[in-house]
């Protein structure tokens, strides 16, 4: 165990990158859960992973490939608007990703990194991208909150007034895809999914209002992430699996009923 590494300046950029994403992803997850679309986060993450691998093989920046693939997934989801679309995207991304890993020597290493989470190798570019994502997505989410909530509670609200809510809902799909893609190439597939899924699960159970739920989910995301970062660094373990386990333990300790998830 070496917890002195936590104070090493080398890990400041990775830590801050992950912390920003750990605050952002639960906010996205609150609305995905509201819309019964939390599985979309896994589809976005898988697509981003496959896109990043494809980009690496083609000699492009992985982050670019991941973001582009997730944006394509978000567009497809918005246009198809069916839950089955997520499953098809996941299967396609998984199949394509595994085939790349099996047939390209460079992709094998990168594939493991994407699965395990390559947070410690993120650089200033990732931090800048995460910072820009937070600066853009948080105000956009605030603007989209009302149409997203109305879409679940009063789905006819806009149409009865002669308005079309679909462009705003598609914008949400795009920013969700973008955010999950950024997180996937920084934190790994399952850590990104865990940060979208678990904090809102706890916030829905305990928050006293929607606003409080948003704040609580972000705090849980950042707290769970920080603990995971410290544990994985101190015990020299891959970040992604540690993050997933820590967050699931959080659910267990909060005594949430798994049958209601």
């Amino acid at each position, binding site marked *: 165990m070496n917890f002195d590494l936590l104070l090493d300046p080398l890990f400041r950029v990775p830590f801050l990158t992950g912390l920003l994403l750990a605050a952002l992803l639960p906010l996205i997850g609150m609305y995905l859960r*509201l819309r019964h679309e939390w599985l979309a986060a896994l589809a976005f993450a898988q697509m981003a992973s496959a896109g990043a691998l494809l980009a690496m093989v083609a000699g492009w920046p992985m982050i670019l490939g991941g973001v582009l693939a997730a944006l394509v997934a978000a567009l497809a989801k918005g246009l198809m608007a069916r839950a089955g679309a997520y499953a098809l995207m996941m299967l396609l991304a998984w199949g394509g990703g595994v085939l790349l890993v099996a047939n390209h020597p460079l992709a094998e290493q990168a594939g493991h990194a994407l699965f395990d989470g390559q947070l410690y190798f993120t650089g200033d570019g990732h931090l800048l991208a995460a910072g820009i994502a937070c600066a853009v997505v948080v105000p956009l989410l605030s603007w989209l909150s*009302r149409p997203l*909530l*109305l879409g*679940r*509670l*009063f789905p*006819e*609200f806009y*149409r*009865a*007034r*002669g308005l079309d809510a679909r462009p705003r809902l598609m914008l949400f799909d795009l920013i969700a895809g973008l955010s999950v893609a950024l997180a996937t190439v920084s934190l790994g597939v399952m850590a990104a999914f865990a940060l979208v899924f678990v904090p809102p699960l706890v*916030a*829905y*159970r*305990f*928050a*006293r*209002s*929607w*606003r*409080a*739920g948003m704040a609580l989910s972000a705090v849980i995301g950042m707290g769970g992430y920080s603990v995971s970062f410290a544990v994985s660094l101190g015990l020299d373990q891959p970040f992604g699996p540690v993050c997933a386990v820590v967050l699931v333990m959080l659910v267990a300790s909060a005594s949430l009923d798994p049958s*209601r998830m």
Partner: protein
Amino acid sequence: MAEVLLRVTGLVAGYAAPVAGPLGFELRRGEILGLAGPNGAGKSTLLKALWGGVRVFGGHIEKAPGLAISHQAQGFDDLRGVPLTGRELLGLTGATPDGLPPWLAGRLGERLDRLSGGQLQFLRLWACLAVPADLILLDEPTNNLDRAGVAYLADWLGRAHSGQGIVVVSHDHGLIDAVCTRVVEVGA
């Protein structure tokens, strides 16, 4: 004479095929019109047709320019587990809490899933009723309301609402008789 908000002539509506109509009526500001008829007559379908929620196969709907419509639909998504307060719910549709019954007004800060079924239903109804709209369409508004809610709704609708026109579909003849200024029969 009050402004005409809606003029409907020979309206036939449905989904893949026509299922309801023809229907014709005129609604002026301040009027409460009841759509009555047996089950399966297509009252809810015709109500939806007034704002474009279903396909119109025939007839004509003429609306006053800039008409703002609020529609309370039958049946709601299950909101158990969603951390939303009553105040936040009303804020979504722009409904005012002024005029809420006392047994609900004091509970607006609570999560919706802490309210009784009747209270939640009334709040959802109120979110569609107490909004800045010219035309309010109510589809079986007494469904799932408790006795206190039905009584309060009838009282609220019975008071003069000169600024709005209201169309009510209900199997509750007591409500229709008590609050509607006019009733139009929809054939089976």
